[in-house]
């Protein structure tokens, strides 16, 4: 097929004028993509590259929804979607490719419905599963470019490793609370272990050598996320993907000694504040190092450490490396006497307290104030976990033996309890982990007065409270 530009017909005015019929775009495509195709630097060639491109979006959530929308709109030829979850109501503030009517449906089919409404032309491929070391290579192999829109460290390392092995460019983004990050990795794709003649682009492990310890990992479910923050990162991923595909960066692998394009790995950081307008710190473009010689996945000798066969055998062990997926309630550290179930608390402590009058016990709620603002156990005092630890450390430094009042906010007064100064303290948190640590901390501070005062954990936190005591409690 002749794809060269012909200009012979440009000035013709008679009806039999020869016309360049080499344009393989249909009437509908010409119309649909016209506004992006006339952007300087785009044109027919770039649009054809998009139409022939295959992109895999892993994760159909807060990043994947906006990314997929713009890629579908732009006419990417094949769009694969990977996700094993179903749509929940609490997703919808940010996962805008789903809908209220599709709650309960698999995310992949829900998002596909949305994308087909936007643009029916692309070929959409559903992968209703999570990515695992067993299926990762088969999922990734047919595609030209991968978007990491997932939500946990283990899959992030897995996806990057597979992209190194299969030489795929990767656009990786992440977001939690009010921060977002995006970086283009392994682009142009470079053979594993190649260092000579570099610098070459980094992989995820080059930039983020080790995951944070499990206790420092924040998930959107636990820590919260603002829709526009994660949405912006997802849109930026689509933007980077279109850039790479339109300029064919994905199809120009770095051959030995000839990095075709300057390697300028950049981590874009979006840091949003609920209390200030755009500031110099809102967007920052940070310069990252290129491929590292000592990188586990792409550095010197990496072919011996990381292989497709190894992945299927469970090497490396991503779960172990990242300290376990998710964060289910951990093992308790307290003895049975130091714990009480929410039901038991209501039946024995609260009822008893009501009979004997107020001030017989203190309920310390260690959740963040945002959680506390939606409701709490009657009479509970809010001392967020971090603040409690700060106070404890402060007192330890000053060498004082604290009173209960010292750890409570100044406006809270414990009413006179008729001479009984050893009012018991019940500690509650969201899911029952921080509260156990808080109990230990309070004892360490000497607040249990050598065992005279009971300091007890309300087991399972407000989550268990909702399950056992008050089904209408606004647990977030």
């Amino acid at each position, binding site marked *: 097929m002749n794809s060269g530009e012909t200009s012979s017909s440009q000035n013709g005015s008679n009806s039999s004028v020869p016309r360049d019929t080499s344009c393989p775009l249909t009437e509908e495509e010409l119309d649909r993509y016209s506004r992006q195709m006339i952007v300087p630097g785009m044109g027919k060639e770039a649009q054809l590259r998009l139409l022939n491109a295959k992109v895999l979006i892993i*994760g159909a*959530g*807060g*990043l*994947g929804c906006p990314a997929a929308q713009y890629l579908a709109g732009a006419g990417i030829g094949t769009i694969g979607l990977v996700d094993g979850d179903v749509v929940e109501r609490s997703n919808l503030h940010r996962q805008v490719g789903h809908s209220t009517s599709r709650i309960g449906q698999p995310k992949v089919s829900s998002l596909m419905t949305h994308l087909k409404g936007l643009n029916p032309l692309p070929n959409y491929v559903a992968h209703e599963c999570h990515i695992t070391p067993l299926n990762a290579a088969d999922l990734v192999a047919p595609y030209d470019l991968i978007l990491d*829109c*997932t*939500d*946990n*460290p283990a899959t*992030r390392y897995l996806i990057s490793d597979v992209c190194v092995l299969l030489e795929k460019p990767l656009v990786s*983004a*992440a*977001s*939690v*609370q009010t*921060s*977002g*990050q995006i970086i283009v990795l392994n682009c142009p794709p470079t053979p594993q272990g190649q260092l000579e003649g570099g610098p070459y682009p980094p992989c995820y492990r080059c*930039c*983020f*050598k*080790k*995951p*944070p*310890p499990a*206790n*420092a*990992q*924040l*998930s*959107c479910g636990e*820590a919260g*996320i603002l829709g526009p923050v*994660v949405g912006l*990162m*997802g849109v930026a991923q689509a933007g980077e993907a279109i850039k790479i595909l339109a300029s064919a960066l994905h199809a120009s692998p770095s051959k030995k000694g000839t990095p075709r394009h300057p390697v300028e790995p950049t*981590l874009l*950081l979006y*840091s949003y*504040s609920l209390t200030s307008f755009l500031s110099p*710190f809102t967007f*920052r*473009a*940070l*310069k*990252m*190092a290129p491929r*590292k010689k000592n990188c586990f996945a792409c550095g010197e000798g990496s072919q011996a450490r990381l292989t497709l066969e190894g992945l299927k055998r469970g090497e490396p062990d991503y779960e172990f490396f990242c300290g376990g997926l998710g964060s289910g309630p951990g093992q308790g550290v307290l003895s049975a006497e130091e714990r009480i179930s929410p039901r038991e608390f209501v039946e024995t402590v609260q009822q008893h307290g009501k009979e004997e009058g107020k001030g017989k016990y203190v309920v310390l709620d260690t959740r963040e104030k945002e959680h506390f603002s939606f409701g709490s156990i009657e009479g509970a005092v809010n001392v967020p976990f*971090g603040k409690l*630890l*700060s106070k*404890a*450390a402060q007192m330890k430094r000053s060498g004082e033996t604290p009173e209960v009042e010292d750890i409570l906010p100044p406006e809270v007064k414990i009413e006179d309890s008729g001479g009984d100064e050893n009012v018991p303290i019940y500690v509650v948190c969201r899911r029952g982990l921080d509260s156990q640590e808080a109990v230990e901390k309070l004892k360490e501070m000497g607040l249990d007065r050598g065992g005279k005062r009971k300091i007890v954990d309300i087991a399972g936190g407000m989550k268990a409270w909702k399950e056992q005591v008050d089904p209408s409690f606004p647990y977030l």
Partner: protein
Amino acid sequence: MSDPKDQKVDITVDFSGGLEILFSNQKHHALSVPAQDSEGKPANVGFLIKYLCQTLMTDPRADLFVLGDELRPGILCLINECDWELEEEDAYVLQPGDNILFISTLHGG
């Protein structure tokens, strides 16, 4: 002439990605830090990390920032917007006007 022990270097330190909760919930800090460490060597980023733990950190959960004497895994340090691996990592000697940024890597989506 002032005693070299009293000399200070003015820098700015930023925290992002949630690390700010350890530092009075403030993301941007303008600091005057000692120009020398206790042994009289010029203050470097390694010294700054210890100094921040001792003087600026308000939350006692230091293990969310350092493990042993090192920055905990999952935190990037950027010196004037460049990954510190492009400089000399913790051996980089602080210069007046430097911006040191600590960010926690994110995984949610």
